[in-house]
């Protein structure tokens, strides 16, 4: 079975919500729709205070090259165009909508039928549709999907890879989509394959999801000969773009380059499903599957949630032991962000909400580095976290740069494996920030 070679760790996968069917979550009373829920420039609001909006109406436009449109997840009145806290803990521009009823834009096809015949055949039309519907990567980074498929002049795509790895422990949102919307996902994959102009697409799934592998392999064998399901040996961080490309194609994205430089485009499975909905159902991306789980959650669940729903409403629905909850994380335990409060709304990139028991919320005390080399062994990029953290501590920025800090994925393998509990990723993040700024300043000159 395939996997990437260099580094990686094996955290306990703890997929507590594995068997919880996707439930449609209640529409919130008030929706807080962030304008900066994708990578790149924030979207610009196109509605004003007091405007009436329906579900699926465009409320903000992504004007910059890397940006995305945002559509109303609810129907009601625009209450305020203001700022609201997001998962980073900072305030970002947001449109706050008071919900009245649940009236959808008429252009959205709400029928349950699966449409197999692809409605658009020209790659340009498909990409324009994806852009119009505000589809972004649902894995966490929320990179606008249409940008990935606009291949720069002089480059050629050989591989389309759909990322259904879900290597983060606990999260099961992608897994449930594979099981419950398998056929739609395959149609979405075919749409993207046409958009990219390649003959074949690959869907990478880790072998801790044997049911999903079996289900999709069966479907693909019947009607989707242009799609290959690739089972992957479980190892974190296989869902990282570069590691997934290595595992499936054997190609290595060179340091500082993009997947397209080795002829690959990778797209998350959840957003591939959104592509299906956008193209076949004319439905913008305004809701997504979110896993709500953790050691203090009595009813680990997968919800289909409208963007803008405050996370506290999700937590209220899973019968959580809040008394003993010490930390709440948006995303997975390896790369997710710890929330400062639960007013933070769901955004397009929210893959999960994870509740930690207070006993597992604090980091164990950190000790001297014992130079065991486990961080070097675990690093999937072949870096030396022990050296980098020491150099960052001493602010030797030139050496930090020379030791390839910018290759760091912040995947957390080094810190996960460190027997001295050193806060390696904290150091690495600091180093990346400073060195990244240095590089940008140099480019300006």
């Amino acid at each position, binding site marked *: 079975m395939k996997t990437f070679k260099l580094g990686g760790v094996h955290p306990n996968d703890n997929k507590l919500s594995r068997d919880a069917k996707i439930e449609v979550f209640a529409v919130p009373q008030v929706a807080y729709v962030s304008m900066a829920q994708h990578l790149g420039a924030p979207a610009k609001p196109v509605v004003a205070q007091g405007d009436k909006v329906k579900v699926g109406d465009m409320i903000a436009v992504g004007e910059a090259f890397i940006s995305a449109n945002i559509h109303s997840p609810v129907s009601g009145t625009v209450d305020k165009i203001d700022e609201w806290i997001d998962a980073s803990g900072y305030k970002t521009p947001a449109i706050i909508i008071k919900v009245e009823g649940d009236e959808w834009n008429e252009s959205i096809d709400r029928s349950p039928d699966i449409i197999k015949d692809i409605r658009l055949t020209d790659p340009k039309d498909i990409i324009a549709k994806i852009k119009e519907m505000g589809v972004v990567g649902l894995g966490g980074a929320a990179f606008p999907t249409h940008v990935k498929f606009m291949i720069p002049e002089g480059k050629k795509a050989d591989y389309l890879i759909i990322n259904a790895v879900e290597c983060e422990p606990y999260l099961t949102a992608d897994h449930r989509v594979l099981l419950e919307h398998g056929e739609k996902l395959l149609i979405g994959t075919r749409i993207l394959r046409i958009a990219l102009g390649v003959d074949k697409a690959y869907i990478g799934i880790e072998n801790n999801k044997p049911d999903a592998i079996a289900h999709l392999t069966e479907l693909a064998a019947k009607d989707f000969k242009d799609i290959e399901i690739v089972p992957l040996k479980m190892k974190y961080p296989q869902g990282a773009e570069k590691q997934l490309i290595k595992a499936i194609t054997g190609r290595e994205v060179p340091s500082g380059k993009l997947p397209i430089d080795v002829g690959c485009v990778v797209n998350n499975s959840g957003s591939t499903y959104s592509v299906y909905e956008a193209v076949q159902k004319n439905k913008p991306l305004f809701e997504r599957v979110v896993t709500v789980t953790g050691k203090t959650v009595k009813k680990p669940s997968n919800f289909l949630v409208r963007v803008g729903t405050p996370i506290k409403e999700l937590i209220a629905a899973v019968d959580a032991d809040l008394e003993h909850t010490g930390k709440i994380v948006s995303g997975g335990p*390896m790369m997710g962000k710890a929330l400062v409060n639960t007013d933070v709304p769901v955004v397009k990139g929210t893959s999960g909400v994870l509740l930690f028991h207070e006993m597992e919320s604090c980091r164990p005390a950190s000790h001297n580095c014992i130079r065991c080399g486990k961080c070097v062994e675990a690093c999937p990029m072949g870096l030396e976290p022990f050296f980098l953290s020491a150099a960052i501590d001493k602010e030797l920025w030139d050496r930090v740069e020379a030791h390839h800090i910018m290759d760091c994925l912040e995947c957390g393998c080094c810190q996960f494996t460190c027997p001295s509990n050193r806060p390696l990723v904290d150091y690495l993040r600091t180093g990346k920030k400073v060195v990244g700024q240095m590089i940008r300043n140099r480019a300006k000159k």
Partner: protein
Amino acid sequence: MSLLKVSGSPHIHGDQSVSKIMKYVCLALLPAVAVAVYCYGFGAIKVLSISIASCLFFEWVIQKYFLKGAFSLNDYSAVVTGLLLGLNLPASLPWYMIVLGAFFAITIAKMVFGGLGNNIFNPALVGRVFLLVSFPVQMTMWTKPVESARLWFFNGFHGMEKATVDAITGPTPLGLLKEGGVAAVQGSNYMDYFLGVMGGSIGEISALAILLGGLFLIWRKVISWHIPVSFILTAFVFSGILWLIDPTRFADPVFHILTGGLMLGAVFMATDMVTSPMTKGGMLIFGAGCGLLTILIRTFGAYPEGVSFAILIMNAFVPLINRGFKPVRFGKEVRRG
């Protein structure tokens, strides 16, 4: 709900910790300790307990009154140092020398550099070499192993006293080799050496017990095979080449890897995380250097045994090796699949 805790990712941690690693090392040393106690009886127990107790004491005193740092005894590193130092000493060593060795190991070799993780040289080996250079006579006065243990078994406490006080001394195989050449060790029983029936430091005599511990450490992922294998293999190959050149002058390779501290050094001393290289390539070079130097010192040097010196010399090269042997980077060169 109390206040939420906020920290950077990752939010989970693997199950490794320093104290766990050190406890695994202690566990892995148990077979060697058992052989030591079987062969040397009370002498072994005395050496080990004095050594461990004084290492713990000096670590505590320095941490509390000089470094004024956090309590560090619970990381078990001082226990490991004490255990390894004790296993590297002869059973008949007077108690104050053991205390002195422990003092040197903990204070000069470890705490002066800033405690665990900052030392350049393996503390237990520094302690041993300090004693070897300062008290060469006592450090090379070996009790004949099984006889002293038999005295203990058959005569109880009285025998124990007799075994340690009127130590029945006999040379180590390597001592014989140095004194009398190859002829003096002709006809040695290698199975005896493998099981531990020979003179030497209390912990180094049984290759079998040490290898069992080494396998356990590899299984628990505390050490990797690279250093022990390259150490033993290099020593074997190099002494083998010498032996092929002139079997009447040089001992055979099996003799070399089974005698002296080679096994203990290769499995437990050279693999000390703090003082060995980071990458697999570096570890192979490090182990090879240790093996080569050991045989060089044994055959051409003044001392019959060279493992401690070899490892300490290679310890000094670790920063250099770490510079030369970098991990393989992802995406370093473009490869089209």
